[in-house]
């Protein structure tokens, strides 16, 4: 009887501590890539904040939009301007969502898992529901996340109908993200 009570107590303590786990990073990397016959454009951002709650499956990203760096200063100015992403008015891009196949992921066992994620992506003040996949790799309790997906600029209110931007900037942009989570 004493052993049973002890076992239940240990199980409860373990569950409580695991359920409070929160993984986070403040140095995630996001890259976007646009390709047209006129030119390829790439920008990198190493300041992404993200949290991942293994027990609930909650996944959140916050991207400081002015931290994207371009090779050319002029491109960077255009990207930040009111005509493009208006980063003064909309300084952060955000994703708030959840892993929908949480039972397929064992955060306690080393391995690579494909997580299906659904949620709301907000860029340029426009929110859109998205469903994408993210590869989660667990090694000794540390989790890394990698994903690659496309976004259509017009879905987020970024539209060019004439001039150089309409020739040089692709309508669809490839997004690549790499996150190294650690326990808080």
């Amino acid at each position, binding site marked *: 009887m004493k052993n049973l009570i002890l076992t239940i107590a240990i199980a409860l303590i373990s569950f409580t501590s695991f359920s409070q786990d929160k993984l986070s990073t403040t140095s995630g990397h996001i890259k976007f890539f646009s390709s047209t016959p006129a030119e390829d454009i790439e920008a990198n951002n*190493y300041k992404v*904040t993200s949290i991942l709650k293994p027990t609930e499956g909650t996944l959140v990203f916050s991207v400081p939009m002015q*931290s994207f760096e371009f090779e050319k200063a002029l491109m960077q100015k255009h990207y*930040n301007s009111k005509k493009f992403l208006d980063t003064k008015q909309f300084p952060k891009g955000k994703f708030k969502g959840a892993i929908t196949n949480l039972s397929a992921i064992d955060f306690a066992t080393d391995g690579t898992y494909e997580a299906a994620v659904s949620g709301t992506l907000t860029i340029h003040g426009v929110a859109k529901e998205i469903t994408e996949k993210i590869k989660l790799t667990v090694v000794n309790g540390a989790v890394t996340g990698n994903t690659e997906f496309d976004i259509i600029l017009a879905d987020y209110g970024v539209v060019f109908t004439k001039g150089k931007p309409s020739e040089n900037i692709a309508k669809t942009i490839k997004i690549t993200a790499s996150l190294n989570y650690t326990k808080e």
Partner: protein
Amino acid sequence: MKSKIIKLIGVLALIALSYGAYLWFMPHQNVQGTKAFKTIDATVLVNEFLADKTAANEMYLDTEGESKVLIITGTIADISKDQLNQKVILLKNTSEKMGVSCTFTVDTNSQVDQLEVGNTVKIKGVIRSGAEYDEDLDLTENVIVEKSAIVE
């Protein structure tokens, strides 16, 4: 008359070419060469964003991304590296949830080598975004400052 018109066209073409070259080779914002907008304590800066995000964004962020260059004073709470191997100093008091995250560059990384958690420092850099706290998501976001260097 004809030769004057040809000369004028030549001069205009040269001006257009020079302007095109200037735009193409325009340098990035020289953060360390820019006079600081103000010197501010890390806690004060965080609280400005928490009190009124819109007013703080209006004050510090620029429409073309060349936002305000600041000198931030504070206590080092953490020293880390990002995925580009740039050193990152977090200025924050132990009792606070959020601070100012200052990212150094390849050229200024070595300035961090002699520093330790608990040291008080002055860091000059360009602000990229403000602090925020989302209670529902338990998401804390530091003020982001990049292109940093230590100010003696």
